[in-house]
Structure formats: structure tokens, C-alpha cells
């Protein structure tokens, strides 16, 4: 058994490659992006539900909207504060958040999620 050197060298190379993403980023996590609010969203002040809820639960909310609209035909949503909204991604959410790239994509890209909403649902043209 004279392969000690080879084994240790191999291990060192393996560890170096395996940990490459960590030391390449100098052991720092990439900064979480802050979604940018559009002018309209800023002016509206409140979203359909509270900010914290929307931040963590918007996908569940959209799922509920989708199921109620498509499958049950219930197209209006009464939020907890009593305001009613038309349950529609393109016609409600994106009427305020008309900056998909800055608002939606930024975080989705960071979190490496690719929701397929936009395959069908339309979004306003971005101003460049």
C-alpha cells in the first residue's frame, strides 16, 4: 500500500473542486436583490394583502386565485381588509407592478425559480 500520496493528492483536488463555489465567492453569499416597486405600486401603498404576507405567500395566493377563477368561476377576491379585487395576474397584479423584470424576475432569478406564468399570461411592455 504505497498509494498514500496519490490518495491524499486526489482528496485535496476533490475538496478544492467541491468547495469551488464557496471560495470563488470569497465565502460570501450573493446579496439578495430588493424588488423595485413601480411608480404605480408606490402610489397604491398597499398590495392585495400585507407586505410580509405577499412576500412569503404570493405563490399560494396566486394558486388560490387560479383555482377559484378557472375551476369554480369565482373571479373576485375580497382581501382581509375588506377591499375587493378582480383575481387576475395580468389584469390586477401587473396593472400596478408593471415592471416585471425589476419586480418579479429579479428575485425569481436569485432564488433560481422559473414560474411558467409568463408562458401564457401577458405582461406590460417594459420601458427601457
Amino acid at each position, binding site marked *: 500500500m504505497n498509494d498514500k500520496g496519490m490518495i491524499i493528492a486526489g482528496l485535496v483536488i476533490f475538496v478544492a473542486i467541491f468547495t469551488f463555489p464557496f471560495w470563488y465567492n470569497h465565502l460570501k453569499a450573493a446579496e439578495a436583490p430588493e424588488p423595485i416597486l413601480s411608480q404605480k405600486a408606490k402610489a397604491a401603498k398597499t398590495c392585495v*394583502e400585507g407586505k410580509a404576507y405577499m412576500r412569503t405567500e404570493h405563490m399560494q395566493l396566486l394558486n*388560490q386565485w*387560479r383555482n*377559484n377563477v*378557472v*375551476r*369554480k*368561476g*369565482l*373571479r*373576485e*377576491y*375580497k*382581501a*382581509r*381588509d375588506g377591499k375587493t379585487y378582480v*383575481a387576475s395576474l*395580468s*389584469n390586477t397584479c401587473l396593472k400596478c407592478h408593471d415592471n416585471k423584470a425589476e419586480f418579479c424576475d429579479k428575485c425569481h432569478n436569485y432564488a433560481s425559480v422559473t414560474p*411558467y406564468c409568463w*408562458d*401564457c*399570461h*401577458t405582461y*406590460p411592455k417594459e420601458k427601457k
Partner: protein
Amino acid sequence: MEKSRRDFLKIAGITILGAGAGSLISGVSISSANESAHKAGSEFFKNPKALTAKRWGMVVDTRKLTDEICEKMQNACHRSHNVPDFIKKFGKKEKNHEIKWIWETGFENAFPGREIEFPRENLEDLPVVVMCNHCENPPCVRACPTQATFKREDGIVMMDYHRCIGCRFCMAACPFGSRSFNFRDPRVAIFDQNPDFPTRTKGVVEKCNFCAERLAVGKLPLCVEASEGALVFGDLDDPKSDIRKILADNYTIRRKSELGTNPSVFYII
């Protein structure tokens, strides 16, 4: 420690029971937590202006139809629902990829098997407009493995494009050819996109939805509005509705009614 076979089986049995009860309890509490998270103050409802019925249906009076009206209806429908026009975009060779929600066809195509030996004058030129029949007993719904196609309480046979996996069983099941498949990305062939209605994506089947999105806000289907009185829309289940009056006053036929799908679109020839 020596264990007898009997002891081992006892302990194993109790463990399984305990695990089962535990998962049951946690499952119940999770689902009730989900319910309550949803129920806490928010709710879903219909727009009070929405048109409702037990069973939506349509009468097509072919006597009032002309080619121009048919074209107008198709344009109104396809433009509003973002139906792609591959033939306009790529030419006739794309005929196989054509997507149709409502279209004009001839009498003998709409009513095959209804052979008339001595047809009345101009019967073969008679414009017949066809679309999804929103059958009472829809074979497409039975064929769909994901329940992407389903029948609503008001009789509309709807598609949930989120669920469609593009297997096309529904297309094989539909005896009317009312369904089209998106073999390619439809967005390339949509000319002026209606921002208020979604497009479809490659790999899903699509068809007429009796303008469910318009009924939900109290408007009649677009084809009915564009038809200049040739199309009448209403509740087949309500004996006092206009549509039932027309059905009572006229002899009507339905497409392939012998198949037992019970179509909700009636034709006056």
C-alpha cells in the same frame, strides 16, 4: 435480551398503529391550518353582474348568416382570445397547425350523415358556423386524464390550461373537431395581442369557452354580439328564456346528436 416472536409482533403492531395515528393527526392539523389561513378574512365570490344559468346553450339561425357575418364573428372571437393565425403568418403550408375556436364550414361538413338526396337550392353554399358544442355529456371531459377539461355547473365545458399536459386524448374523443393543439408557440402568430386575455403556450389544447370571462362580468359572448341576431345565447334549463322560445317555435337540429353527447348548440337550417 431475548425477545419472543410474540413480543416482537406486539411491539411492531403497536408501532405501526402509533405511526398511523400520528400522521393522521398531523395531517388533519396541517389541512385545517391551511383552511384557516385561507379563511382568515379573505373570500372569493362571483361578480354580482355575472350572467348565470343552469345550462348555457346557443341557437344558430343559418338563415340569417352570411359569409361576412361569419368572418366578423371569427375575427371578434379570435382577436379577443389571442388565437394565433398561422396561415396568415406563414402561409397555407401551416394548415395543419391551424387553431380554431369558431369557424365557418359547409352544411355537409357540419352535418355528415344527414344526406339529402334532393337538397334545397343553395344548401351546399349555406354558411354554417361551428364551435365547441359544450355537450351535456362531453366525451372530452371523460377522456382527459388530468381533469384539465371539465364541465362547469353552468354547462360550459372549460379548459384549465394550467393542467393540460397536451396528450390530445380530448381531441380524439371530440366528435366535432372543436379542439386545436398548439404544436408550436402560438405567440409568434398573434397579431395584435389582447392584453386582457392570456395566450396559450406550446403543447396545450385549446377551444371555445363560450366566453366564460365575459359572462363573468355580465356580457354576452363575442360571437353573439357580432352575429347581427343570427346567434342567440341563453339558458336551456329555463323554460321562459328567449332561447327556449326560439327552440319551441322552430325546428332545430344538432350536430351528430345520434352520438349521445347532447350538444348545447342548436341549428335552424
